[in-house]
């Protein structure tokens, strides 16, 4: 079982996060933590603020209020590329691949933050720049092997079917060797077989690389199966937080999903 892995200290802690767009309150005083090496599920009905929460964590949205503590450093806001440099990677609900580029190039961009040769070396493509390029190519090829996408290495991603695009996107996030991986509905729109593959990849990533994962997912069976812990959001508020079994029987969660008459 999942519990066999040794789950460590708190890696990321969000406290009292509030976010609004114009008059719409997307998140209200949300507090939870993510522990090292765990798989955390974030669930909730549509419009509950799940994607907004991920956007806050990786710096794309700046919360109106609240603190984020990542690896012991507290901050209120940072730019997305800074988050990336600190080991936070993510995938998107609507695939955000670079459509004009090949699978290989897409995954290589995930390693851009680790490449340091300046443009003059790049232009010459000699010595250090070339060594660096080849070194990262080797690392990327390992990811390509891991995700079993060798055959589409040189195909422009715009031409790939949906399920493979999702897989390439995961590959791009993995290429950055993140400590914290945020997955926004990694299995949306997939058939059963593709879902099973994706679950396997997620668990393998967690197992083999010790990557901490926070994922948003609507398929409850998947969430209950692969997550160590689940956070439930509804209308921008946290309504439950606990083990899958505990959450499943929580009355607030049942009300949020099934609807309840407010009288």
């Amino acid at each position, binding site marked *: 079982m999942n519990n066999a892995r040794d789950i460590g200290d708190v890696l990321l802690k969000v406290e009292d996060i509030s976010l609004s*767009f114009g008059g719409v309150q997307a998140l209200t005083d949300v507090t939870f933590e993510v522990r090292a090496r765990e798989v955390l599920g974030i669930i909730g009905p549509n419009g509950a603020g799940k*994607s907004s929460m991920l*956007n806050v964590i990786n710096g*794309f949205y700046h919360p109106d209020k609240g603190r984020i503590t990542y690896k012991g450093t507290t901050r209120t806001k940072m730019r997305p590329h800074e988050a990336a440099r600190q080991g936070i990677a993510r995938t*998107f*609900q*609507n695939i*955000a691949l670079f459509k004009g580029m090949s699978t290989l190039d897409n995954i290589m961009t995930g390693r851009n933050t680790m490449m340091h040769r300046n443009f003059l070396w790049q232009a010459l493509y000699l010595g250090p720049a070339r060594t660096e390029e080849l070194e990262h190519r080797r690392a990327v090829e390992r990811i390509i092997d891991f995700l079993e996408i060798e055959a589409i290495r040189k195909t422009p991603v715009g031409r790939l079917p949906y399920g493979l695009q999702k897989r390439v996107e995961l590959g791009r996030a993995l290429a950055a060797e993140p400590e914290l991986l945020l997955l926004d509905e990694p299995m949306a729109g997939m058939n059963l077989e593709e879902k099973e593959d994706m679950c396997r990849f997620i668990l393998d990533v967690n197992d083999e690389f010790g990557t901490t994962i926070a994922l948003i997912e609507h398929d409850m069976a998947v969430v209950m199966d692969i997550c160590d812990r689940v956070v439930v959001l509804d209308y921008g508020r946290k309504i439950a937080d606990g083990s899958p079994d505990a959450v499943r029987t929580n009355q607030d969660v049942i009300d949020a999903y099934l609807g309840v008459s407010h009288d």
Partner: protein
Amino acid sequence: MDLMNILFIAPFLDMADAPVFLAEVVISGVLTGVMYSLVALGFVLIFKASGVFNFAQGAMVLFAALTLVGLMERGVPVWLALIGTAAVMVALAFVIERVMLRPLINQEGIILFMATIGLDFLLQGVGQIAWGSNVKVLNVGIPNKSFEVGGILLNEFDLFAALIAAVLVGVLAVFFQKTAIGRALRAVADDHQAALAVGIPLTTIWVIVWSVAGIVALVAGIMWGAKSGVQFSLSLIALKSLPVLILGGFTSIPGAIIGGLIIGVGEKIAEIYWGPAFGGAIEGWFAYMLALVFLLFRPQGLFGERIIERV
């Protein structure tokens, strides 16, 4: 110190010294601005309804004016020439839709934009081959007498142009907001596929909007042409409507008008009061620089909607 004087003090002293002259400068700026607005209006129409940034609007102005003058030179009476030119512009809209827009449906905006740059060249070439490239005089019988109000010199033609522009804007605003076609146009602007899905005939809408833009171009062409002659530089002047759009926002009809006026007045005042300090001819770039500075602080324009990015 001297520089500060030239830039920040002397121009304002000059303005205060001769208020009548200042008023005349402002009025001439307003009228140039009306002309810019007319061209910008064509851009906004097409952008609003098809999401295409039509770089060829300037060439359409030139093409319409050339056609009108060409017909009149061949002895066609004014009213018939006007109808004829309008018909040519509608026919042109058909051809553009058929040959250029339909095959490019669902392409990215930037591709369509570049296609209209091609169209710009094509129309300039065709217009000048068909009707000749020498400077032509356009006289459609608009009165052109000057008169004085409170010591300020005014021109009937300019007032007439302003009036036409006002009427045109009024009609277009009603057309867009109140009619079924207007609603369909706005729907298409938002999302081509969604509009198709609810049964809006995309191609018809495009023909309509390009025709309307063609007729707006004709009006602009008549005004510009009657004021300064029909010639190739018309399409260059039309480039000036690009900064107007930046100021006004790409989708706002009132924005096009106000942006046009700001640019028109701004560049006249800049040229007359600050031009000498810079060695003159700053009219050529003032509008673009103003737009550039503007973009840095309010990228969505005066009346454009704030852009929220989502992933």
